[in-house]
């Protein structure tokens, strides 16, 4: 039972990270209909900025996060203004390719600026753990789960009750109709990219903390999080969280139980495959994801 709880704890923490990364994808998709493959690079750059604020300039950790969020919000707006805005009206596939190119450019830029070695973000959590019965839980994992819940709650409130949140939903649903109602689609797009930058800082810090450090490989998490995003539903913040948790727990449980017992049959790295199997199975039943919105077209 202890092993199960330990794996469950790690799986939930991993799922929370996936969820935070997915939320960055979702916010942009929800507002613009674009899958932003550069979100992984946003995560990397956000964490590198925290490194600069805490280590290079000696600022306290939490103010450093806020400063990094501000910088990433600006970067998000600039990316939208200079690049993505010019792609409005272009085929979705072309826009996706542009974000993919952006990912490559930002990763190489990060390499050039910050180098290749692991850099600390100066988090206070380190390797500290707390014992919950026989289960050792990392303090950073508690933060991952807590902040995941906080960000999700903030998203929910934002989309449900704020004028801009409603404007974003309206723009995503029908941009022309929204514009006709006086909503500034440009502001909506810019804001969504800014929010994606802010969320990326949270994800980046929580990934790089706990003794790991930040380097460009941090961005690979975005690719691992894709099944969670698809499974949860591309336009659903809540779906991101549920999808993240399902994929995180599935991955860790598979590594803990199935690989050792059946690795000779299914392969020793079945934990990498299993999330995709779960995703496929769920999508066979719900093709738009667990909480995704059906797209209905009248003909």
């Amino acid at each position, binding site marked *: 039972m202890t092993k199960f709880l330990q794996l469950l704890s790690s799986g939930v923490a991993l799922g929370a990270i996936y969820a935070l990364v997915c939320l960055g994808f979702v916010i942009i998709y929800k507002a613009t209909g674009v899958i932003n493959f550069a979100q992984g690079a946003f995560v990397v750059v956000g964490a590198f900025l925290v490194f600069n604020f805490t280590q290079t300039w000696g600022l306290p950790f939490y103010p450093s996060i806020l400063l990094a969020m501000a910088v990433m919000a600006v970067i998000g707006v600039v990316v939208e203004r200079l690049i993505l805005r010019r792609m409005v009206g272009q085929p979705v*596939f072309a826009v996706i390719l542009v974000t993919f190119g952006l990912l490559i450019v930002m990763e190489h830029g990060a390499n050039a600026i910050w180098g290749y070695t692991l850099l600390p973000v100066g988090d206070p959590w380190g*390797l500290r753990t707390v014992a919950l019965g026989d289960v050792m839980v990392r303090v950073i994992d508690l933060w991952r789960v807590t902040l995941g819940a906080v960000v999700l709650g903030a998203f929910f409130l934002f989309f449900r009750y704020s004028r801009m949140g409603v404007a974003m939903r309206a723009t995503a649903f029908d941009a022309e109709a929204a514009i006709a109602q006086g909503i500034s689609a440009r502001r909506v797009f810019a804001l969504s990219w800014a929010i994606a930058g802010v969320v990326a800082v949270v994800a980046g810090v929580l990934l790089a903390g706990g*003794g790991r450090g930040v380097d460009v490989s941090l961005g690979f998490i975005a690719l691992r999080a894709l099944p969670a995003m698809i499974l949860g539903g591309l336009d659903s913040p809540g779906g991101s969280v549920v999808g993240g948790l399902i994929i995180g727990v599935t991955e860790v449980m598979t590594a803990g139980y199935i*690989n050792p017992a059946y690795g000779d049959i299914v392969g020793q790295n079945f934990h990498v495959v299993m999330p995709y199997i779960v995703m496929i199975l769920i999508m066979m039943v719900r093709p*738009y994801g667990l909480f995704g919105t059906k*797209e209905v077209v009248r003909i």
Partner: protein
Amino acid sequence: MHQLTRSLPGRLLAAMFALALLAAACGNGDDGDDTTQATPSPDATPGEPEPVPGFDGTTIRVGVVTPLSGPAAIIGLPLTAGNRVWFEHVNAQGGIAGRYRIEMVEADNQYIADETITQYNRIKSDVVMFAQILGTPPTQAVLPLLRQDNIVASPASLDADWVREQNLLPIGGPYQIQMINGADYYLRTEGSTDSVICAMIQDDPYGAAGLEGLEFAAGELGFEITTVARYTAGDQDFTGQLSQLRDNNCEAVFLVAIPSDSVRIWGAAATLGYAPRWLGQSPTWLTAFAGGDLAPYLEENLWIIAEGAEWGDESVPGMAEMIEHQEQYAPDQEPDIYFVFGYAQARAVTAVLERAVELGDLSREGIIAAMNDLDRLEFEGLSGDYPWGPPEERDPPRESSIFGVNADRPAGLEGLEINFASDAARAFEFD
């Protein structure tokens, strides 16, 4: 009126698949020093090499295909810096054979096999040979092309499979030797044949090479490998694998990983309170680890199996010379075991080119002939000397060094036993 329900995720999956396809498609100097790099055969015939691809009559160009970006850049960049420092030193002495400048043509393979092939094909016509191809999977990928094109490459990879390859110029004791000597050291110091010995490996050819060595050691030294936990490069959580090791009471775990993964594996182990004796192959280490939150755990539990002396140990002639050159040509270079490898590798490349110039032929065939004509590659203690010759006569060094973690030492490593060769390592045969 009909309604059609379109699946957004389905379209996304199609786009992702297309993107994946797109991503897959894109893809001694005899310098007056008193160090000897290679011992040529005595019947050398002097001559003036003709211009060939990669040699215009004045400059010799060599290729470097290495991860300059991505997670393995953490290895590729310092290793390439080591290459560069040695070649700058050679050029300062007048170049290869005191006559021909040497230039590196660098290409980024991101530690991806397919990308390695792309970059290899892009620059192969501009170079006489490859001074570095980093990584076991990339080297495996490009090997058929090397054979087909008759080009020589020096792998920055310690796989035993390279030893008998006509087109490869490996240096150092292979991973298999590292594991065997690591097991020998563990049994002589902390463990016994009754100890529960396990492995955690990256599930690819690099991991398989390390496991092969550990399995050989088990047979020679009389212990059992209780558990082999595997992971995929890029995994974000290792609780499952670590639980597997802990459930089986593994007392010693041999780790085959690259630094971006090893740091998370050790970090997860530390936070789970799991503290076996870790023995990491040389590519698991990064100097930065000695200064981070993990340092106390690593100082207590980790040994690194590598080669050569501690950084800065100037009692070792090769190290003293390297430090002198590093201070001259790369003064900002931090102590780094991969830099040492790259520096030693460039020495071996220079030895081959010197011999080729001596024989008057820098063509691809000429370089292979020159390489086969060398009797020994010597590294003055930076790495084990390598009895050389035609592929069937090559005999890799059997020495390894065991390092403990010590943040006060350069590169964060303190020599525990330097350049020893176990009987089991000597018994390992290379097919």
